[in-house]
């Protein structure tokens, strides 16, 4: 029975103007986004070939991550080259551009398309599921038949989910397959698995907005009212809450500004150099002082920043869009935690290089060869343990809740 309803929903969707518009939008945007972000990745790769360190150079650079085509996250910050010198870590080459327009608008990666367009599309599929059939008078007939309301609702949900998910998956997989033709984009099996997890998250996210649409539709009698409620709810969930949440968190956790940190670093090393020249004494001690003070500052900053991130995450959990962004960038390896970890590794590498430098100088050795910087991204299990699992569970809870409430609303719905 449920199969019939699913089929009916799919057929009626296929015949509608809605699916035409929506499919066009989805196909166009996903394809454009993958194309554009792939070009962006290739540019990063070309830069990496230039800045990658020669053996023995004390430079820390990680290669670009092909998953950043899908979820760019903090990739730009992570692929910079960190060059170690006696005064600390210097960022010499980052992929920067003179084109300031990049700074105005967020990157249109696949995750952006999912977060914003796919959620809107799912709402547009859900908003009139019940109220429209009531307005057309078919709801009476449907419920009058030998089907339970639960079956009607489940059938409707499944039918609409399939009409959305199938074209979405087709476009995405096709796009990913085209990407594989580029020899620079070498996905490892693990990365393909991660991509699969991101896709599953995207589907879960889409399912939530579909259920939300059906929920509001089951609570209102007119499709127009339902749409208005949903559009405003969508704007709040996707745009306002996540961005306001991080700002609110800043009110409670004071974090030194980036500017303050870099000014402090400058003051520290120039002071030590001056003291070294005027007072003389051991250069090694001066170097160690600079390194220690910077590390202490960095450590203090990390503690505060982690607290800020945790708090803003907790606030942002109100919005599934923020959860999706955190979880998907985490899984792709371009998230906030990964960037923090990379920087901590760079600091550790700096200390190892300094130790060797000091030892080599004491031994009178010239042309020191330093070990290469190796960074291993967190394993998928670790990413889940660090918070992605909570995001995933939370998204599932949102889903179940929205569907259960939709059911409760529909059971009490006056079909006349």
């Amino acid at each position, binding site marked *: 029975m449920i199969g019939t309803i699913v089929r009916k929903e799919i057929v009626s969707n296929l015949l509608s103007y*809605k699916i035409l*518009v*929506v499919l*066009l*939008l989805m196909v166009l945007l996903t394809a454009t986004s993958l194309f*554009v972000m792939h*070009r962006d990745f290739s540019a990063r790769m070309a*830069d990496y070939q*230039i*800045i990658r360190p020669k053996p023995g150079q004390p430079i820390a650079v990680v290669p670009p991550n092909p998953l950043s085509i899908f979820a760019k996250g*903090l990739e*730009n910050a992570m692929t910079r080259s*960190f060059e170690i010198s006696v005064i600390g*870590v210097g*960022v010499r*080459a*980052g*992929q920067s*551009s*003179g*084109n*300031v*327009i*990049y*700074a*105005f608008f*967020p*990157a*249109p990666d696949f995750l952006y398309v999912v977060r*914003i*367009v796919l959620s*809107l599309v799912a709402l*547009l599929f859900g908003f009139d599921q019940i109220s429209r059939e009531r307005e057309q008078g078919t709801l009476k007939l449907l419920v009058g038949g030998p089907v339970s309301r639960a079956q009607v609702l489940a059938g409707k949900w499944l039918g609409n989910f399939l009409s959305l998910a199938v074209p979405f998956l087709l476009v995405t997989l096709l796009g990913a397959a085209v990407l594989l033709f580029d020899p620079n984009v070498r996905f490892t099996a693990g990365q393909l698995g991660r991509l699969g997890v991101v896709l599953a998250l995207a589907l879960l996210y889409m399912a939530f907005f579909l259920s939300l649409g059906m929920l509001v539709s089951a609570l209102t009698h007119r499709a*127009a*009212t339902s749409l*208005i409620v949903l559009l*405003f709810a969508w*704007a709040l969930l996707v*745009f*306002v809450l*996540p*961005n*306001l949440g*991080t*700002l609110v968190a*800043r009110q409670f956790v004071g974090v*030194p*500004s*980036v*500017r303050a940190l*870099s*000014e402090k670093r400058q003051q520290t090393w*120039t*002071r030590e150099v*001056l003291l070294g*020249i005027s007072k003389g004494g051991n250069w090694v001690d001066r170097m160690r002082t600079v390194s220690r003070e910077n590390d202490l500052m960095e450590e203090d900053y990390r503690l505060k920043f982690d607290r800020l*991130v945790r708090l803003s995450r907790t606030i942002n959990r109100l919005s599934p869009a*923020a959860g999706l*962004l955190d979880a998907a960038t985490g899984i792709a390896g371009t998230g*906030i935690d990964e960037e923090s970890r990379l920087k901590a590794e760079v600091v550790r590498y700096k200390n190892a290089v300094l130790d060797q430098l000091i030892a080599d100088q004491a031994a009178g050795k010239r042309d020191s060869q330093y070990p290469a910087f190796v960074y291993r991204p967190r394993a998928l299990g670790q990413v889940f343990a660090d918070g992605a699992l909570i995001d995933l569970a939370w998204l599932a809870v949102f889903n179940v809740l929205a569907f259960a409430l939709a059911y409760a609303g529909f059971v009490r719905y006056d079909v006349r």
Partner: protein
Amino acid sequence: MGQTLVAKEIRGHLLSFRFLAGFVILFVVVVVTSVVLTGDYVRKLDEYSARQAELDRYLRTYAHFNRIGGVLRPSQPPIPFQALVRGLTADVNMEGFDADPLPVMFPLIDLVSIVTILVSLMALILTYDAVSGEKEDGTLRLMLANSLPRSKVILAKAAGAGLALAGPLLVSLAAGMLVILVHPRVDWTGVDWAALGLIVLGAGAFGGVFLLLGILVSSVHRSSASSIMTSLSVWTLLVLVVPNLSPYLASFLAPAPSRIMVARETERLSDTDRDDLVNKLRAEYRGQVLKDYPVLAERLTEAEVKKRVAEDPEYRQAFEANRAAEERALAEGNRIQSEKIERIRTALRRKEAAQTRLARAISMVSPLADFSYLATDLSSTGTRNQAHFADLARLWGQAFFGDYRTKKIADLRSKDPTADVWNTAVDMTDAPRFRYVEEGLGGRVQTALPPFAVLLGYGIVLFAAAYVAFIRYDVR
């Protein structure tokens, strides 16, 4: 008659659920954002003065000319407008090790994002069924059966919706401003108020574009259900897609070489390539010198050369000609290489500027980008301010490294001619400090005019199209 129509439209909006919902959400979000952003601004003020105090302490004890450039970098103090518009003054920093990645992931909300997303959405929601809805209700027929020109009807619809949108926007903004002004530490000057007035005017034009878009789409479609689909798709493209794609498209259409590549190339040109060139030139010049002074062909040790230079004036002349040739080779090599480098850098700058211009032009197809440029430039948080800041920084640099440093170093040398003036601690608390002054309103308005004109042009075109579509509308 026109008044009756407008009054009817406004009444219709005021009584509607969508108006109420939009109003409440706009009001709450604007007020909450104002509270949070004001707190943020005050925190930034404190942070800025703490940083300056730290810098003062350093300048008193440890300042020395050799490394002062990195320490005394001009930095922009928070401006009162940041309690409303955040603009480009974010903490995202790609040039140094310290960077705050949160705003990259979650662009912070401000008046600009509220207006661009919420107001445009509300405008569409108000008008997506302006014509098609009345057709479905059957009231359109009745209305047009009277002696009413269609032009008046559509004009009244636009005016009614415009007023219905302006009300909530102005009320919410007034409440937000009240929150900001009640705070004792936020000072708004007359110029700030004028700039805010102009931004609100721009917001009005921006909202108007989407109202007219809704009316146009609704007078093209027979049913409200398809009308909302079309309006939302167009909205998505204009607001959420075109601006974000524009820099990437521009980089495709007007490519500029990567800065990393250029840096590597210029490094090579001024290093190994220069040495090769100098060696080549040196050989060439020396060949000529050798022709003129065959005595140089003799192979002598350094000591012998010295001896001969002292004794033999002819040899000395030859020796000096040789040295001059070597110096000439070095100077010539340096000149050629720095010309090459300068050419590459100029080409890069030119290409980047062309790409930026193109990206800006593409993005200006989107009313959201138009409004963002208009609002950030008017509030001195946009690209114009970056250029203005760079100018101020240059002037300060001249005052500091030109006048102040020259004078101080002369002072130091007069006291002790043998002192290492570069690496001696000098109390620099009396040095000219970088002071940021906002640019006058005139220049800011000038930059804001083109995006404003685009918004107005959009409005006129959309209204004309809506009029034509409505004239041809089948009211049955």
